[in-house]
């Protein structure tokens, strides 16, 4: 990285398992980099100031707001977007449950909701409905009223815990 002031930087990172390198303006945020340079448009741009949660991705396995991180700050990191989580099947049961429970209408918030829900279930396999609400509190949905989203995440938590080796409820 640069010890003297610059306006463009070469970055290398891993996105959804693939090594990526690019020259980026320092003012470019991570979500615009993902969408416009890499054409990964599953990550959405809503408010652009960290409020709506639509741009949520994983950086080094932690949820972050991709609108509140510069692309240059992702240098050397491992990024996962909904495209990666979807292709790996990691959130397939959540996607199915969202469909079955009508946990989406327009779908704008859905990619970030899925990543955030998947993160919760990895950290806490059997969350209470309150814990689900708390973990999803940073993600706005303007269609569903949230009830059906909580239902879907709760259903997946129950189903996973019924599998052999699942966490007891």
């Amino acid at each position: 990285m640069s010890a003297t002031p610059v306006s463009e930087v070469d970055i290398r990172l891993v996105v959804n398992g693939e090594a990526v390198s690019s020259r980026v303006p320092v003012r470019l945020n991570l979500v615009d980099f993902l969408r416009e340079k890499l054409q990964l448009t599953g990550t959405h741009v809503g408010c652009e100031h960290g409020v709506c949660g639509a741009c949520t991705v994983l950086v080094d396995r932690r949820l972050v707001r991709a609108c509140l991180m510069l692309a240059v700050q992702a240098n050397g990191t491992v990024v996962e977007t909904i495209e990666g989580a979807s292709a790996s099947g990691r959130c397939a049961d959540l996607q199915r449950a969202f469909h079955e429970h009508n946990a989406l209408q327009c779908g704008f918030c859905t990619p970030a909701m899925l990543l955030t829900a998947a993160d919760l279930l990895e950290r806490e396999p059997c969350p209470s409905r309150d814990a689900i609400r708390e973990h999803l509190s940073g993600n706005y949905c303007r269609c569903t009223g949230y009830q059906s989203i909580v239902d879907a995440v709760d259903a997946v938590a129950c189903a996973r815990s019924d599998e052999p080796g699942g966490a007891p409820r």
Partner: protein
Amino acid sequence: MKLPPFSYCVPGSLNEALGHLHSPVHTVRVLAGGQSLLPAMNMRLSTPDLLLDINHLPELRGISVQGDRMMIGAMTRHCEIAESTMVAERLPMLRAAARHIAHPAIRSRGTLGGSVVLADPAAEWPACCIDIDATLIAESDLGERHIAAADFFQGMYDTALRSDELLKAVVFPLPMKEEPYFFDEIARRVGDFAMAGIAARATAGSLRAVLFGVADRPVDLSALLPSGGSASDEPGQNRIDETALNHVISRLPEVIQPMESPHCSASLRLHYAGVLLRRAVQALPVCGAQA
């Protein structure tokens, strides 16, 4: 909105970072977690022409215990404090407070030092720092400066940190034995800015409480609360019964003059301050009437 144009640099050492702080040609802002600075820049509330990214200085990160103090590096992230077993065991109030800071995705990036230096009136860490009597360690070309948390927060977004200084770490004194604590806040939604909040602990037989979100800076209630600590104090002498509590609550307007805002009137904030103080007294048996 997108970020305005700026230059960016990643200093390789603390000294190099300090050198950039008094640049004659640049308006410099330090980029810590960026969870408040980047939105402020998007909205053109802050328009630095040089961003100094201090995310790659290992000496600013980490949690360690040295004797009767815990030192937390300024660039330690909220999630790291929330997940630290050392914090959970020795300073559980910090763990409780971390849960209230925004949302998980914000806690992944936001830092202790960033929050302390920003000094948002509704922020959790400044209140904890004052309640626990933390010391803030600032570094400049002139050397290290230790600032008591009680003297650090000087108003809305205003602190004792000089423009040539970087906050290096926060040092929390550890209690000799476990102290019951209480941390709570009232917000319309989990993770929203608090309309009122409280950080409180029972120490030396009395209640130490700091309110936040109700004034331009955290408010230490020590002047209103019965104080303990002297060797001659009978155990329980400083308990706060219902009458005493009502009296303290009635005197809150002497120390806090809450601000009006579109979503929360000053009188509602004042009411919430009283509600939280009551909860703290009830939750901390050493202070409460029923103990």
